[in-house]
């Protein structure tokens, strides 16, 4: 059993070094000048506006992906048609594209030299370097999250209940609200959780399309960079600690979901590993 102890020790040391240390240093640096300074640096109007910006982006991007995920899973998992796998591949595409390229795509569409740049300028619409561009970039990078949870789960659960509901005379909306949604709810919540964490934390894509104006178009994740680059380490880590807490809450909720609703989520994890 010495081998087993050695393996466990090695694995846990690796995790401590690469996962625990970064987490600990965020809080230790944030509190390095004492709790009072910590609160003061968070009680800054620029941080407040970054929180608002982050929440606004997530409040648009997450529901957009929920609606898309539900519709995509409905047509892909409940029906059998030609090109289904191609559709799944395309939905997965944003996962293998660099966030910076995702931002670049928005610049090529909406930037002043972009495809719609001239028209947008003539009509006085600002997309790049403003909230709309940041929202679209966030939708792009979080695009697969909800759909990717729901499709395999719905496929594994099958259509029997839905078909029974149809024969009993239920309408499409009734079937969805009273049969399908309850079946999928934990998977949906799981997807929303991951989607939200990414939407609130996205850095690369949003960084390309934001004006990087601290206090106006900075999200929390961008504010971390702004503060760090201006050598205000303590404040940078204070803001980072907010995001780290969000990450920890996400992990706890995720673990709780996996523990309590393992069977309803298991399909998702297995299908992913096999694909």
């Amino acid at each position: 059993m010495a081998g087993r102890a050695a393996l466990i020790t090695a694995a846990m040391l690796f995790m401590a070094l690469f996962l625990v240390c970064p987490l600990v240093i965020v809080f230790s640096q944030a509190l390095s000048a004492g709790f009072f300074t910590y609160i003061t640096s968070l009680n800054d109007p620029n941080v407040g506006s970054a929180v608002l910006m982050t929440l606004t982006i997530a409040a648009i991007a997450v529901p957009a992906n929920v609606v898309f995920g539900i519709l995509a899973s409905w047509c892909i998992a409940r029906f059998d048609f030609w090109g289904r796998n191609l559709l799944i591949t395309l939905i997965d595409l944003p996962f293998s594209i660099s966030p910076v390229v995702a931002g670049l795509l928005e610049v090529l569409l909406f930037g002043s030299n972009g495809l719609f740049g001239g028209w947008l300028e003539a009509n006085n619409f600002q997309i790049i370097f403003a909230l709309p561009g940041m929202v679209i970039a966030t939708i792009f990078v979080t695009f697969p999250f909800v759909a990717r949870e729901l499709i395999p789960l719905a496929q594994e659960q099958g259509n029997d209940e839905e078909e029974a509901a149809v024969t009993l005379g239920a309408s499409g909306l009734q079937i969805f609200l009273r049969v399908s949604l309850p079946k999928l709810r934990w998977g949906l919540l799981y997807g929303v959780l991951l989607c939200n964490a990414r939407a609130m934390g996205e850095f690369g894509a949003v960084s390309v399309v934001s004006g990087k104006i601290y206090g106006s178009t900075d999200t929390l994740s961008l504010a971390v960079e702004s503060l760090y680059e201006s050598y205000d380490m303590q404040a940078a880590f204070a803001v980072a600690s907010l995001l780290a807490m969000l990450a920890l809450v996400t992990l706890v909720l995720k673990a709780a979901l996996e523990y309590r609703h393992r069977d309803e989520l298991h399909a998702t994890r297995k299908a992913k590993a096999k694909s």
Partner: protein
Amino acid sequence: MSATTAGPGFRPRLAWRKPSILPGFGLSFSITLIWLFVIVVGPLAVMLWFTASLGWDGFFGVILRPRVLGDLRVSVTTALAAASVNAVAGLLIAWVLTRYRFPGRRIADALVDLPFALPTSVAGIALSTLYAPNGWIGAPLAVFGITIAYTPSGIVVAMIFISLPFIVRTVQPVIEDLEVEQEEAAGLMGASAFEIFRRVIFPAILPALLTGFALAFARCLGEYGSIIFIAGNKPMISEILPLLIMSRLDQFDYQGATAIGTLMLAVSFLLLLAINLLQAWVRRRHGG
């Protein structure tokens, strides 16, 4: 025409779709397609179209610049290094978490997903502070003359952090499904622990390990946020390709940024294709 009048609710079905009594296909399918086009396919097509308008000379004029090639080399080698480290460490962690029971296992299992949940800029400043010459990890290493931060090794460290869950989470379910009986049988027939691992366990998890490796590698190549703080960002030495795109954009060199973006896209596609072929080969060979 006679078939279409079979019943009041009957409509002729298109051949590309199996008939179903469930409603809502048309609506959900068309919205899915439109949204997919607007958000993903259309913008990618626009980028490729912009690249095509550069012409071969314009495209290769950008791509073959020493700085682009040098940064590509940095990106690929560091991503390979990080994915390789994680192939070993991730396999070990996945094995320990599924096969053994020990105090703190559930917390460790949840913590594996930290890199998915922690914003990359937070990871970036945390790692760069840890590994800086006066940091918690950087200072002890400096005693031995090892510098991590602001060198290519720093890039590898950030990539290891960011891609660890990909390997663990792809390998874990396969280890869960392994039949312990096979290992016991091999043990009864006199195989050593190493032989059991090499001939019974490893072949079974290899396809998943390769998939995880590919996912980790792709993620490392594209990663930006966690890397830029700890990398030295010296062109051709410790500058990654996504950062080069960023600096092209900052200088309003949209053609350069577009060409490099297309190059990155091509590299990740080639990579995923290669690994898929490799996986198919492994599956054929081991009859799984």
